[in-house]
C-alpha cells in the first residue's frame, strides 16, 4: 500500500508580554516607544470604563441588554491599532473598544445599546459596519467589502471580528473559503473568550485550536495571546501587511477569557464557578500592560488616577448626553425602510401617525 504525505501544516502561537508583565523575547518595533503603549493602555482603560458604566446603566434600566467586553479589551484594541483609518472594520457585538478606537463616539455606543438606531449612524468611520447580532452573519460582508476595495484597486484592508462560537457557523466557513479562493485583503479575528454563552470552547469544536480552521480553506492561520495587546497588534499588523501586499487573508485566533457574564441578560454562575474564572483574572490584559509600563517607569500612580478620572468623566458626560437625547420622532420608523417611501407604506405611515389603521 502506497501512503504518502501530500500536505502538512503547522499552527503557531505568538505571545510577547507575559501575564507577569515581563516581555518574552524581542518586542516589536512599535512597542519600543512607551507613548505608543500608553495609547493602547488608555484605550483599554477607556473601554473598561465604558463597559462598567454600560453594565451599571443596564442594571438601573437606562440601557438595553449589553455585552460586556471585560477582560478581552486587548483583542479589539490590538486589532484596530494595526489598522489604518481608511481600512474597514466589520465588528461583532462585543468590540466596543475597537469601535471607540476607530472613532465611534461613546455617545453613539450608548445610543445603540440604549435602543436607538442612530447609534449605528456614526459620524466617525463612515465605512465601518455596524455591529452584527446574528453570530457570524457578518463574515461574508467582510469578504464583500474586501473584494470591493480590491476591485477598486484601493490600498485598504478589512478586519472582521467574531467570537469562538461564530467559528462553528456555516457562514464563517463559507466566507473564509471564499476569501481564500478570491484572495481578498481581509483578516478574520476570532475573539476566543472560551465561552459562547454557556457553551465552552471545547464543546464548539474538536479542533485543538481555532486558528487551524484556516487549513480547511487554504489561508494562513495563527494563534495569539489575546490578553497581550502588543502581540495582538503585531500579529494583526503582519496579517494586514500580507492582506494588502498579496491579497492573502488570515485567520487570527486571539485566546482570551470572558471575565463577565455573556450579557447583562445572562447569569454565568449557572454554568461556571468562581474557581474556573479566578485564575483568568491573573492574566487579564489591562493590569498586565500596566505592570509592564510601570516596570519601564513610564506610568505612575498619578497617571493612573488621572486616567481613571478622565475616563470616568468622559463616559459620564456621554451617558448624560445620551440620556438627554430624546428618541427619534415616531414616524421615523417608516423613513429608512426604502430610499423612497413606497405608496403602500406611505398609507401605513399616515394611518399610524393619525392613530388609525390602514388595515
Amino acid at each position, binding site marked *: 500500500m502506497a501512503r504518502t504525505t501530500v500536505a502538512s501544516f503547522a499552527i503557531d502561537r505568538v505571545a510577547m508580554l507575559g501575564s507577569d508583565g515581563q516581555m518574552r523575547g524581542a518586542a516589536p518595533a512599535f512597542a519600543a516607544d512607551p507613548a505608543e503603549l500608553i495609547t493602547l493602555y488608555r484605550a483599554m482603560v477607556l473601554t473598561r470604563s465604558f463597559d462598567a458604566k454600560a453594565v451599571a446603566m443596564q442594571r438601573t434600566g437606562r440601557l*438595553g*441588554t449589553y455585552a460586556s467586553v471585560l477582560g478581552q479589551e486587548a483583542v479589539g484594541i490590538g486589532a484596530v491599532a494595526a489598522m489604518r483609518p481608511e481600512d474597514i472594520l466589520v465588528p461583532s*457585538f462585543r468590540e466596543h473598544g475597537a469601535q471607540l478606537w476607530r472613532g465611534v463616539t461613546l455617545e453613539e455606543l450608548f445610543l*445603540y445599546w*440604549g*435602543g*436607538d*438606531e442612530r447609534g449605528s449612524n456614526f459620524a466617525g468611520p463612515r465605512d465601518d459596519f455596524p455591529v452584527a*447580532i*446574528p*453570530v*457570524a452573519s457578518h463574515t461574508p460582508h467582510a469578504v464583500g467589502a474586501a473584494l470591493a476595495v480590491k476591485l477598486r484597486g484601493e490600498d485598504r484592508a478589512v478586519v472582521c471580528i467574531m467570537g469562538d*462560537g*461564530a467559528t*462553528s*457557523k*456555516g*457562514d464563517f466557513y463559507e466566507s473564509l473559503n471564499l476569501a481564500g479562493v478570491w484572495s481578498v485583503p481581509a483578516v478574520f479575528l476570532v475573539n476566543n473568550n472560551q465561552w*459562547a*454563552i*454557556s*457553551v465552552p470552547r471545547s*464543546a*464548539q*469544536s474538536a479542533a485543538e485550536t481555532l486558528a487551524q480552521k484556516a487549513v480547511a480553506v487554504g489561508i494562513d492561520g495563527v494563534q495569539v495571546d489575546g490578553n497581550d495587546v502588543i502581540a495582538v497588534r503585531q500579529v494583526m499588523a503582519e496579517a494586514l501587511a500580507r492582506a494588502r501586499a498579496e491579497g492573502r487573508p488570515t485567520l487570527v485566533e486571539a485566546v482570551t477569557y470572558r471575565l463577565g457574564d455573556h450579557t447583562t*441578560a*445572562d447569569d454565568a454562575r*449557572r*454554568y461556571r464557578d468562581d474557581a474556573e474564572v479566578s485564575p483568568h483574572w491573573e492574566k487579564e490584559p489591562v493590569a498586565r500592560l500596566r505592570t509592564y509600563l510601570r516596570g519601564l517607569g513610564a506610568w505612575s500612580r498619578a497617571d493612573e488616577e488621572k486616567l481613571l478620572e478622565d475616563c470616568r468623566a468622559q463616559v459620564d458626560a456621554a451617558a448624560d448626553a445620551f440620556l438627554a437625547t430624546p*428618541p*427619534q420622532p*415616531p414616524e*421615523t*420608523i*417608516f423613513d429608512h*425602510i426604502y430610499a423612497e417611501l413606497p405608496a*403602500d*407604506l406611505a398609507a*401605513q*405611515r399616515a394611518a*399610524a401617525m393619525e*392613530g*388609525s*389603521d*390602514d*388595515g
Partner: protein
Amino acid sequence: MAEITLVEAVRLALARAMEEDESVLVLGEDVGVDGGVFRATDGLIRRFGPDRVRDTPLAEAVIAGVSVGLAVQGFRPVAEIQFMGFIYPTMDQMVNHAARFRNRTRGRLTCPMVLRAPYGGGIHAPEHHSESNEAMFAHMPGLRVVIPSSPARAYGLMLAAVRDPDPVVFLEPKRIYRAIKEEVADDGSEQPLDTCFVLREGTDVTLVTWGAMSVETLAAAEALAETEISAEVIDVATLKPLDMATILASVEKTGRCVIVHEAALTGGFGGEIAARLAEHGLMSLLAPVQRVTGHDIVMPLPRLEDQYMPGTDRVVAAARRAVEFA
C-alpha cells in the same frame, strides 16, 4: 396543581414527553446546564442526562439538520432555536427535508421533529431578537405551525407536537412567557393540532388572533364589552393546517371580523385568513374584514419599539369600525 407560566408549561411538557418516550431528545444552544436562555429546558439535563439534553455548537442549520437525521432514524428531537431571528438558516432543512421525507419516500422515512423558537417583540430586546415570521413556515406544505397563547395551551400543544408523526414548528410568544399564570395539570393530555380555540364567546364581532397578541385582543374584547359590544375571540393556535371551519362559523354568527397579529401586514398569515373569509364567508360579512398588525417595517430598536406593536386601542378601534359599518 400549581399555577405556572407559559415557559414553565413548555418545560413541563418537555419533561413529560421525555419521561414517557425515550426517543425524545432536546437539543440546541445553551439548552443543557444553562437550561436555555429563557429557562425553557431548565433542569432537564439533570433529570435526563447529557445524552438526551444536548448543547450544540452555535450553528442553526445543523441543529435543524441533525434533528432531521435523528427523526428519520426514529428519534423525536425537539430542537431549540434561541430566537426566531436566527431561524432563517434552518429553512433549508425544514422546507427541503423535514417537510418532505414522508412524501419523497412514500412514507418509508418520516420526520417527527419539533423546531421550537421563542418569537415576537415587545420585550425591548436587542436587534434581530423580535421577529414574527410564522407566515414563512405556514406557507410550506408538510409542516405544521403551532403557537400557544397560554400555559395550558402550551402544555397541551407541545405534547401533541412532540407526539405528532410529522415535523412541527412550535413558536413560543416570549412576551408572555411569564406574563400569565394558570393552573396546568401535568396529566399528559394533549390539545389538538388542528383546532382553533374560542377564548371568549360573543355575537357582534369576531376577533381572530394567536400568540402574545391574544392578551391585547382579550383586553380589547373586555373594553368593547363595556360599551355593549360583544366580541368573540378566537385563538388560531395551529396556523397550519388551518381550522377555518371554526373561524367561518364564528363570522357567520357575527358578520364581522378583525384579525390581529404582530407580524408585518403584507404577507402575514392574517392575509390567508382574510382571503378565506372573502372566498368562503363573503355572504356572511356585514363589514370589511380588517387586519390589525405590525407595520411593514423592520422592528424598531427598543426606544421606538412600541410604535410597532399593535395595541389594544387599535384592536378596539377596528372592532368598533366593523360594528359601526353600515
